[in-house]
């Protein structure tokens, strides 16, 4: 109880609230601009979190991601260009609503159900995380090895459309993570005698490269069309929402649940949650023929799912230090930087931080309603910001951010290398998310393996002859069997193709 109050007092003070508010506005803006993703918003935010306390830093990231995922719906609905990949699943549907003159209904539903989905994901996080953390206190290196394995397995099998490419992407991330002296033996690896590389690849510079510079490179390579102007006049947004909530309560609940579960799976985030929820909605709908013609049902289910996924992704991130998606991968990097190392000990040693995080989630999703409303009202102005000026300005900001990460031009060089890597990977159809998970989980995987082998005297059987470790190992094997089973049935291939064609996050 004491910790709960302490958590509240950490959140409800003017400094934290101001940071949350500013990060929200930033998230809404970045999310609403097509070509700038929610993950990019997070990567750009990281250099600024250097200069914040731990709780404001975490609050900024929570608020920014929630706002950006919602804001992606705005250009999707009005211009048929998703603002973030997480909105891509239902962009055609909500744009069809706009063409039918229902833009305000679509946007009102997007906003309301995004906020509800976000709160649902948060509630699951609040209920599940402490219980899991309690369980995880008994984990040793054996269990952590398999948790990391499971995370990486999910990233390749569930999150990606193309397994060999996802595997290579993962291996690239793992390989990059081995650079430097941070390994169980303390031996410098792949440093080429370079002093900067001794401490390993700077995570922040790499993230800015991967998610911001690669996006600018893509824009530079495109035909750089000017966005079409928004035509619609928007009236009262929430006028029909009460009716929608009663009529589609089941879809909404199902979207929330699907989103949270997919979010919690490592490697699969908000974008995949939305695709799956949309497919589920169509499959169980009484009127599947209406899908694609501007029917609000699928929009409700999938817009709920992508925001619910955000809270879900924090469950493995907080409890095990295993990111549920690329956004939480960045969050974990920041948590380490702030000395709030994720894991069960965080729940025991600093419960007030946990309560503060929960509170921040609720606050962010409640703030989404008024701020999102304002963003929709200002959509015309926001979407008329010329990208030709915005993109180079972001590049300037990237340079400073990467420089701040290492306090030298080395950070900028690192950012450039990873920007080009991310750009080439995307252009060649390699998903980026597995690489990020590899980068984050690589050290954990190696350390837990070496520690386990040391205590088991190099006997590989030792990895599986503890009950929990054995169960996790079986779980890994089962996940590996999924693609095999799919190959045999050849059933989900169509759905996977659709996802493969969509832009990745």
């Amino acid at each position, binding site marked *: 109880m004491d910790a709960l109050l302490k958590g509240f007092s950490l959140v409800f003070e003017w400094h934290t609230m101001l940071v949350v508010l500013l990060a929200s506005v930033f998230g809404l803006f970045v999310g609403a601009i097509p070509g700038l993703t929610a993950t990019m918003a997070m990567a750009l935010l990281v250099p600024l979190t250097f200069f914040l306390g731990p709780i404001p830093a975490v609050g900024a990231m929570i608020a920014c991601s929630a706002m950006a995922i919602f804001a992606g719906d705005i250009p999707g609905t009005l211009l048929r260009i998703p603002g973030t990949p997480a909105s891509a699943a239902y962009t055609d549907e909500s744009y069809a609503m706009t063409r039918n003159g229902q833009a305000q209904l679509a946007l009102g539903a997007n906003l309301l159900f995004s906020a509800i989905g976000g709160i649902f994901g948060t509630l699951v996080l609040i209920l599940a995380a402490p219980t899991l953390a309690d369980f995880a206190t008994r984990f040793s290196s054996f269990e952590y090895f398999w948790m990391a394995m499971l995370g990486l397995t999910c990233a390749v099998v569930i999150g990606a459309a193309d397994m060999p490419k996802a595997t290579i992407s993962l*291996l690239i991330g793992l390989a990059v993570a081995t650079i430097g002296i941070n390994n169980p033996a303390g*031996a410098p*690896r792949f440093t080429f005698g370079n002093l900067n590389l001794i401490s390993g690849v700077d995570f922040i510079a790499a993230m800015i490269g991967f998610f911001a510079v690669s996006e600018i490179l893509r824009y530079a390579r495109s035909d750089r069309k000017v966005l079409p102007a928004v035509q619609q006049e928007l009236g009262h947004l929430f006028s029909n929402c009460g009716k929608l909530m009663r009529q589609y309560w089941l879809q909404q609940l199902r979207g929330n649940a699907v989103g949270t579960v997919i979010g919690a799976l490592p490697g699969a985030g908000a974008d995949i949650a939305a695709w799956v929820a949309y497919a589920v909605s169509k499959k169980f709908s009484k009127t599947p023929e209406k899908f694609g013609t501007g029917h609000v049902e699928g929009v409700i289910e999938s817009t709920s799912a992508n925001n619910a996924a955000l809270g879900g992704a924090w469950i493995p991130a907080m409890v095990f230090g295993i990111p549920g998606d690329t956004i939480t991968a960045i969050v974990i990097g920041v948590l380490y930087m702030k000395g709030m190392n994720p894991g069960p000990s965080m729940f025991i040693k600093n419960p007030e931080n946990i309560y503060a995080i929960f509170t921040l989630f609720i606050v962010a999703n409640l703030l989404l309603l008024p701020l999102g409303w304002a963003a929709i009202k200002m959509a015309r102005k926001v979407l008329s910001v010329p990208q030709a000026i915005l993109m180079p*300005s972001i590049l*300037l900001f990237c340079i400073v951010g990467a420089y701040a990460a290492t306090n030298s031009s080395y950070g900028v060089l690192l950012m*450039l290398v990873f920007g080009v890597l991310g750009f080439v990977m995307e252009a060649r159809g390699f998903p980026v998310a597995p690489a990020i998970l590899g980068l984050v989980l690589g050290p954990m995987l190696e350390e837990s393996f070496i520690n386990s082998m040391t205590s088991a005297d190099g006997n590989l059987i030792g990895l599986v002859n503890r009950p929990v470790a054995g169960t996790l190992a079986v779980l890994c094997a089962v996940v590996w069997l999924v693609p095999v089973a799919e190959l045999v049935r050849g059933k989900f291939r169509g759905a996977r193709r659709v996802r493969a064609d969509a832009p990745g996050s």
Partner: protein
Amino acid sequence: MASGLTAGAVGIVIVAAAANLPEAAGQSFGPGFFPSLIGKALIIAGLVLAIRAWRDKRLLTGSGASAAVGWIGSALVVGALLAYVLLADWLGFHLTAILCIAPVMWLFTRRLVMSIAITAIGAVCVHAAFYSLLRVPLPWGVLQPIGW
């Protein structure tokens, strides 16, 4: 196919480099163990990809070769960042930023004066925020005499 072969080649390099890492005394899993595993996996995955691409190619000819003109923009962005890395410590943040970002903005907008003006204002603002407020040691370079 090129991606698969590249991945495989990187794998071979990693395996070779890992073999040169020192052995840990009295342990079967030294610092080279994990990287060599990654390298081997990369070789396998790269081969799978290359074989698949080769097989698909016979069914499906003609890949989407992209026009060279589209690459100019990307090349300019890469060049700008490289130039920043090379010049920043000598020229200082302000001048390097203008030198690197303004051409990119010009390419996107085709308006030279506006590009230089916006970049210059941006550089001063960003510098003020990060150098003065957040204490990031952005270099002054040749502007050191007027720096603070």
